[in-house]
C-alpha cells in the first residue's frame, strides 16, 4: 500500500492586520506499486494515433513504431485499445463492433495490436473532439477499469471550432488522464496544452519522427508505475477564510483553483490523478480575517486523500506578531515557486506577443523570463530561452529577439514553460 507524507514550508508570522498566508506543501508518495495492482480496480490504456493526411510517410512510420514500443511497455493484464484518429475516430484495435471495446494485454493481444497499428494509413482531416469522445466510450465499456490513461499523438491543427473541442475536453475531465504529444511543428501548443492540462497530463513536442519511440516508451513506463489510481488534494480553510488559490508547482505549474469540488462547508477537493513514487509540490494561499497580536490559528489543513481516506496532512499556520524580523521574511520555497509560476506566464505571454507581431512586448516578457529562469535556477528554461533570444544581461533581463528562430525551438520553449525545478540547496 502506498505511503504518503506531507511537509509544509511557510513563514507563519503575519504582521498586525495581516491577512494572507502562503505555503508550499510538498507531498511525497512511496511504495506506489504498479498500475492496476493496488486492488482498487484495473488499469486501462488507450493509444490515439493521428492518421490524418498531413502525417507524412516518415512521421506515420515513426508513430507506428512508437505506438508498438508503447504496447510493449504495457504490463500484462492491463486493458488497452488503439484509436486511429482523423476526421473521425476509429477503433483500430480490438476488432469488435459491440461489447467491451478494450482487451486485456497478453502475448496474443500485444501481437494483434501491433499488426493493427502496422496496417494504419494516413488520410483525412483532424477532429480531435471525436477522438476524445471515443476514448471515453471505450473506457466506459469496461467497468472494471478505474485507472484510465490516454496517450495522444497529433501532428496538425484541429479542424473544428474551439467550443466543440472544449465540450469534449469537459466530458473527459475527471474521467481519464491524457499525455499529449505533437509531432513536427504544424500543431498548436495552446490547443493541445488545453487538453493535457484539463486531463492532468503532460504536453511536449517531438520534432523528429526518430525521437518518437523513446518518448512513447517513457510515457507508458511512467503510466505503468502509477500504482495509486486516483488521489485528491483536500484543502480545509477556516470559517470566514478564502482560499485565494491552489496550484501545483512541481513538477509543472497547474492552477487547480477552479477545479475545486466541495467535500463539506470548509473543505474543497482538487483532482491530482494517479501517482507513482514521486513528489509534487502545491502552493496554497489563504486569506484570513486578521486576529489580535499573539494569536495563533490554523490557516489550512492540506491533505492528500484516496477516496475518503486521508493519507497525509500538512498544517498551514498563522501567527500574528509585532516582530518585524519575523513577519518580513518570505519563505524561500514560496519565493522560488512564485518566481517559477511567473516564469511560466511570461514565457507564454512573450511567445504569444511575438507571434502576434508585438516585438516590444515580446522582448520585455522574454527578458523577464530570462531573468526569472536565472534567479530560480531553471537551467532547462534558460537553455530553451537562449534559442529564441540573444541574452545581453540575464540579471537585468535585457534580451534581443533572435532574427531567425527554428519553429520547433519556439514550440519546445512553449511546451516546457510550465516545467519547474526545485529550490537549489
Amino acid at each position, binding site marked *: 500500500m502506498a505511503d504518503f507524507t506531507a511537509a509544509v514550508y511557510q513563514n507563519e508570522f503575519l504582521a498586525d492586520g495581516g491577512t494572507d498566508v502562503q505555503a508550499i506543501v510538498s507531498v511525497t508518495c512511496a511504495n506506489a506499486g504498479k498500475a492496476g495492482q493496488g486492488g482498487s480496480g484495473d488499469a486501462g490504456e488507450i493509444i490515439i494515433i493521428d492518421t490524418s493526411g498531413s502525417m507524412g510517410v516518415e512521421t506515420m512510420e515513426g508513430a507506428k513504431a512508437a505506438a508498438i514500443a508503447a504496447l510493449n511497455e504495457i504490463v500484462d493484464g492491463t486493458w488497452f485499445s488503439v484509436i486511429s484518429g482523423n476526421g473521425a475516430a476509429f477503433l483500430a484495435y480490438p476488432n469488435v463492433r459491440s461489447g467491451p471495446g478494450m482487451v486485456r494485454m497478453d502475448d496474443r493481444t500485444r501481437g494483434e495490436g501491433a499488426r493493427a497499428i502496422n496496417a494504419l494509413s494516413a488520410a483525412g482531416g483532424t477532429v480531435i473532439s471525436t477522438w476524445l469522445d471515443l476514448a471515453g466510450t471505450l473506457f466506459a465499456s469496461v467497468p472494471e477499469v478505474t485507472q484510465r490513461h490516454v496517450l495522444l499523438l497529433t501532428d496538425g491543427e484541429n479542424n473544428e471550432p474551439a467550443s466543440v473541442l472544449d465540450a469534449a475536453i469537459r466530458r473527459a475531465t475527471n474521467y481519464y488522464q491524457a499525455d499529449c504529444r505533437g509531432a513536427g511543428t504544424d500543431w498548436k501548443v495552446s490547443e493541445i496544452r488545453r487538453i493535457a492540462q484539463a486531463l492532468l497530463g503532460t504536453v511536449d513536442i517531438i520534432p523528429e519522427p526518430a525521437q518518437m519511440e523513446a518518448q512513447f516508451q517513457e510515457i507508458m513506463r511512467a503510466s505503468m508505475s502509477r500504482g495509486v489510481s486516483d488521489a485528491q488534494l483536500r484543502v480545509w*480553510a*477556516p*470559517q*470566514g*477564510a478564502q482560499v485565494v488559490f491552489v496550484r501545483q508547482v512541481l513538477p509543472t505549474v497547474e492552477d487547480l483553483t477552479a477545479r475545486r469540488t466541495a467535500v463539506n462547508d*470548509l473543505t474543497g477537493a482538487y483532482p491530482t490523478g494517479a501517482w507513482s513514487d514521486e513528489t509534487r509540490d502545491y502552493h496554497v494561499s489563504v486569506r*484570513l480575517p486578521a*486576529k*489580535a*497580536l*499573539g*494569536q*495563533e*490559528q*490554523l*490557516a489550512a*489543513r492540506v491533505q492528500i486523500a484516496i477516496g475518503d481516506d486521508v493519507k497525509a*496532512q500538512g*498544517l498551514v*499556520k498563522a*501567527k500574528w506578531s*509585532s516582530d518585524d524580523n519575523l513577519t518580513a521574511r518570505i519563505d524561500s520555497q514560496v519565493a522560488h515557486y512564485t518566481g517559477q509560476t511567473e516564469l511560466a506566464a511570461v514565457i507564454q505571454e512573450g511567445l504569444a506577443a511575438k507571434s502576434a507581431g508585438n516585438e516590444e512586448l515580446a522582448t520585455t516578457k522574454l527578458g523577464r523570463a530570462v531573468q526569472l529562469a536565472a534567479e530560480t535556477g531553471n537551467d532547462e528554461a534558460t537553455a530553451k530561452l537562449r534559442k529564441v533570444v540573444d541574452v545581453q544581461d540575464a540579471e537585468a533581463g535585457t534580451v534581443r529577439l533572435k532574427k531567425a528562430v527554428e519553429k520547433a525551438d519556439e514550440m519546445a520553449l512553449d511546451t516546457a514553460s510550465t516545467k519547474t525545478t526545485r529550490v537549489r540547496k
Partner: protein
Amino acid sequence: MTCSSCGADLAADALFCEACGAKVGSGQAPTALTVPVGATDEDSPISTPTAVRAPVEVSAPQARTCAECGGTVGADGYCESCGLKAASERDHFREAPTAWVGGVCDRGIVHTRNEDAMALWADDAAPRRAVLVVCDGVSSSKDSDVASLAGARAAREVLRPAMPQGMGTAESADAAATKVLTSAAAAANTAVVAHTDPASESPASCTFVALTIDGNLLRHANIGDSRAYWFADGGAGVQLTVDDSMAQMLMAGGTARAEAEAAPQAHAITKWLGRDSPDIVPVVGSLVVDGPGWAMACSDGLWNYASEPSAIRAQMDAAGTTDPGALALALVEFAKAAGGHDNITVALARVEP
C-alpha cells in the same frame, strides 16, 4: 506513537504533542512526576516534614470546545471550524483546590510558550491551610516550561504537611518553618535539575515564590522576582517579598521604584533555581494578619503592569468578584490587555481568620 501525557496520536517526528503540548519522548510527562526528597532532610535539627508524596494527578483529556467559536477542537489541536489554536493544557491552566483558593497560569500574548508554573493546595479543616507556589521559567534556557512546573509541584508537596512547631516558642517555630521553606526551595531545585538535559548548554532555570497560609499566619519564601503580596480588605496592600533583581539592587541603593524598574537590565534576576544556580537558599518571612484579605503569589507577568501594591489593589477592586479563580483570571486578563509581554501567573487565597 501516542502521547504519554494525554494519549493523543503523534506524528513520527513530533517533538511536542499537538493535543496537550507535552514534550515527546522525554519521559517528562506531567503524570510521571515524582517528588524528589530534599537532600537536607536528614540533618534537620528540629523535625522532618512528613510529606505524603502522592503522585500528581492530571485530569484526563476530553473533546475540547473552541474558546473562540464553540466549535470542536480537532486532534491536531486546532478548531475544526474557525482554526483557532486551542490553548494547550500547559499554555493556560487553572487550579482551584477549594472554594477560597484559586489561580491562573497563562502564556500571555507575546511569548510562544508558557514557562510560568503554579502549584496550589488547600485544606478546609480549621485552621484553614493553603500552599501557593509560583515558578517563572527563564525563557533564554531550554526546557524551562517543563522544569518550572516540576519545581513548583515538588515544592508544593514539601509544604503540604502542617508546619512543624519546633520547641513550641515563636522563635523555634520560625526556625522550623524556615527549614521547611528552604527544603521546599531545595526540592524545587532538585526537580528543575532533574528535568534539565545534562548536555544542555543553557540549563533550565526558574524563579521561586512560596506562600503558605495557616489560619492567620502567612509565611513566604522567594528566589528571584516572583512575588507574594498581602491585601487586607480596605487596605492598599503590601509586598511581602523582596526581589532578587537588578531593579531591587538599584532601589536598595536609593533609586526610585519607577526609575529602577525602567532601568536597563532591571529584569535581570540575581538568584534563580537550576543547575547553574550558585545560591538556592530563599529569603523567608512571615506575617500575622488580624483581619480578612487576599494573599497572593504572582509572577512578573502581572506586576510588570502594576508594581505598586495599590495598583494591583485597584485592579482587584475593578474586577468586582470575590471568587479567587475569577479574580485571578481578571488580573491575568488585565495583564494581557496591557500587552502580555511575559507569561502571567496569579494565585490567590481568601484569608478569613
